[in-house]
């Protein structure tokens, strides 16, 4: 072996090592962003519409968010906390940022009985020890009396025992199973499993010959797929489960596989974050195979005007998306207008603008303010969390149902949803069956929750009343 051959072979060996390391790096990056991705995505944002462009927003006063219009709160601050995932490929910071915008509005308009809210937003990168440390920091250093706006891939799994031990009742946007299956966490959204339930449920109403359910290949896929599988099975519709590793780098082959597996009378249901969902749908469009199935459906992350705009009118009435919150497009209720006005005036940090993420932040802050306003006496961990737990039949103006915390072993207070469809660059209510629909009790988790908590009445202040 001469010098060059030796060098080449040693370099080749080194390159294999680099390949391996690179693969691991790429894999890590993938899986974290994917977790974030599919499992993650509690919802998505209709980023197309910037806050300032939101029609009636400018005309609506934000002063109604507080009790004393135009009077800044100057009392002792009420400390609240939040932990959100903010990492490569996945950020849920908009949810906490919108809650912050709501609190800023409250603080500028009288606060809570004169007390301003001081909101601590902690960001994590899917690191269990970091998350455990942040929760302790919020409690022991920042002395927060309530936790609101949490949206994290694993925070519920990591922290739920801690919160239970400390007596905190969390208002969050759920992703991990523990956000829904434990006593001290109640989400305003439905999360990936129940949103996929809704998408599959809608697809079944269109009588497909079979359903292909594809989601990001991340921990928790079996748990998520269990819901859609139970619902399809009860309807005697065959269902095929598939996964794709995010970020989806081979969208063409994924799209071909989905379409050929579903067949021309079948339905494809996706559970991905907006970038990956858009990759797959765009690939189907470029390959001209989007019409080779009966319909496409998607969990909440696809409910974004940006996606509808990117795909174009070819997808009008072809894709149906589960929507956990009232569609902002075309909704002209006082709550929706207040949301848009707060976003416009206080939401400069909300990068996604109008959409599900900021809607969730709005609702969570709204619920927390209602709880705080009901506290008599000092704002302590005990008094504030008792008030949170006592929230019952709240009209949020953003959800199909009234929202209740309650003393339950699990929490799924949002279990009725809308279905939207692409309509010339916007996501609007599906003309047939797009209104508020209960998630099927064929999902055993839904059945278990309703057996304990009952079925909440519809919210007359949202469009779905």
């Amino acid at each position, binding site marked *: 072996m001469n010098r060059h051959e030796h060098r080449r072979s040693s370099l080749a060996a080194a390159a*294999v090592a680099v390949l391996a390391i690179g693969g691991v790096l790429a894999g890590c990056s993938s899986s974290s962003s994917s977790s974030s991705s599919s499992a993650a995505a509690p919802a998505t944002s209709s980023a197309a519409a910037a806050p300032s462009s939101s029609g009636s927003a400018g005309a609506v006063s934000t002063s109604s968010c507080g009790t004393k219009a135009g009077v800044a709160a100057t009392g002792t601050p009420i400390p609240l906390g939040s932990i959100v995932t903010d990492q490569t490929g996945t950020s849920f910071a908009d949810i906490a940022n919108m809650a912050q915008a709501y609190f800023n509005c409250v603080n500028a308009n009288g606060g809570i009985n004169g007390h301003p809210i001081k909101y601590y937003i902690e960001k994590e990168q899917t690191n269990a020890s970091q998350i455990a440390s942040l929760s302790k920091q919020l409690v022991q250093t920042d002395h927060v009396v309530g936790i609101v706006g949490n949206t994290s891939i694993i925070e519920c799994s990591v922290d739920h025992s801690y919160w239970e031990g400390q007596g905190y009742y969390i208002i969050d946007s759920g992703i991990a199973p523990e956000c829904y299956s434990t006593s001290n966490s109640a989400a305003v959204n439905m999360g990936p499993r129940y949103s996929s339930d809704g998408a599959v449920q809608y697809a079944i109403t269109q009588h497909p010959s079979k359903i292909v359910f594809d989601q990001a290949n991340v921990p928790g896929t079996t748990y998520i797929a269990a819901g859609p599988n139970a619902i399809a099975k009860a309807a005697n519709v065959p269902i095929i489960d598939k996964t794709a590793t995010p970020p989806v780098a081979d969208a063409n082959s994924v799209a071909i596989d989905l379409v050929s597996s579903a067949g021309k009378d079948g339905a494809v249901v996706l559970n991905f974050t907006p970038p990956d969902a858009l990759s797959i749908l765009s690939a189907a469009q470029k390959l001209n195979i989007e019409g080779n199935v009966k319909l496409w459906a998607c969990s909440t992350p696809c409910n974004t005007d940006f996606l509808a705009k990117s795909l174009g009118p070819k997808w009008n009435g072809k894709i149906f998306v589960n929507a956990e919150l009232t569609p902002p497009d075309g909704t002209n209720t006082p709550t929706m207008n207040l949301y848009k006005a707060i976003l416009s005036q206080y939401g400069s940090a909300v990068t996604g603008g109008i959409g599900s993420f900021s809607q969730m932040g709005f609702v969570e802050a709204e619920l927390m303010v209602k709880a705080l306003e009901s506290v008599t006496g000092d704002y302590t961990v005990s008094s504030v969390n008792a008030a949170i737990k006592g929230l019952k039949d709240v009209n949020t103006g953003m959800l199909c149902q009234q929202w209740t915390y309650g003393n339950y072993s699990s929490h799924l207070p949002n279990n009725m949803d809308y279905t939207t469809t692409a309509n010339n660059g916007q996501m609007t209510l599906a003309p047939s069956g797009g209104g508020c629909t209960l998630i099927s009790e064929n999902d055993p988790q839904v059945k278990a929750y309703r057996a304990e908590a009952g079925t909440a009445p519809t919210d007359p202040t949202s469009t779905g009343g």
Partner: protein
Amino acid sequence: MPSWSELEQFLVSGLALGGVYALSGVGLVVLYRATGVLYLAFGAVGALGAFLAYEMLQAAAPQWAAWIVCILFGGLVTLLYGMIFGPALAGRDPLVRAVATLGLTLILFGAMELLWPPTSGATRAISLPTDNGGFTVFGLQVTWTQVIALGSGVVLTIGTGWFLRYTKLGTAMRAMANDRVITATLGVPVRRVEAAAWFGCGILAGFAGLLLADLVQLEPATLTFLVISSLAAALIGQLRSIAVTFAAGIVIGVIHDLLTPFSALTNYRDMTPFVLAVIALLWASRHRTVVTRSREEA
């Protein structure tokens, strides 16, 4: 077991993806042959160029200007790196030179994460006008972008082979691949030849980045680490053979996509480049051993 008619569609999509892997792999080999540097920043340079093009398009700049900026950015950044760090690292072990480019990768990747952080809303994307036209093969629409991806790989492979064989600059690059010092003593302007190789490789990185941003996804991690598949192709070509590298890139893309409909293998298809590279290296190693033993026995 999928039928052949089902596999046909995956063959078509795999060819397009393989074409870009091949294009990138050939760029890596050309640079390695001229400078002895395994350029791991190939993907990151292309990705950053694509993001710049995206920003220009958002600012309503003409599309052609955005594409040129993307491609030129790749060339200039790579040239700059080669001119600043190339001479300093020229005498070092090839592994050190490769790891240095990993440093550039991480810097560029960090810059992208900083400048284009993940958003909760809009997805970033580049769509080339060539996406709007094409033809149908096996029931699939093949866009002109995919044709360009595959065709440019073919053209590059043939063109580079011709360039290295018949031009003065190409001959100088081949000479440098054999021995940089002796080539320099023969009066070849080594620095200039290296600069040409760096710039050419960077141009290819920018071009591949633009195509991949359209064909795959405009996302920092995705584009940065796609170079791994190209690197596997280059390794299969033993960092020497442009034709083998090209073929390996195509094979990686095709096998990767063909595995998609096989439910037992579909979740492992991302391992395709690694498996093929390891098999090729083991084969090459065994082949060399056999040849050496035969020579000794003779």
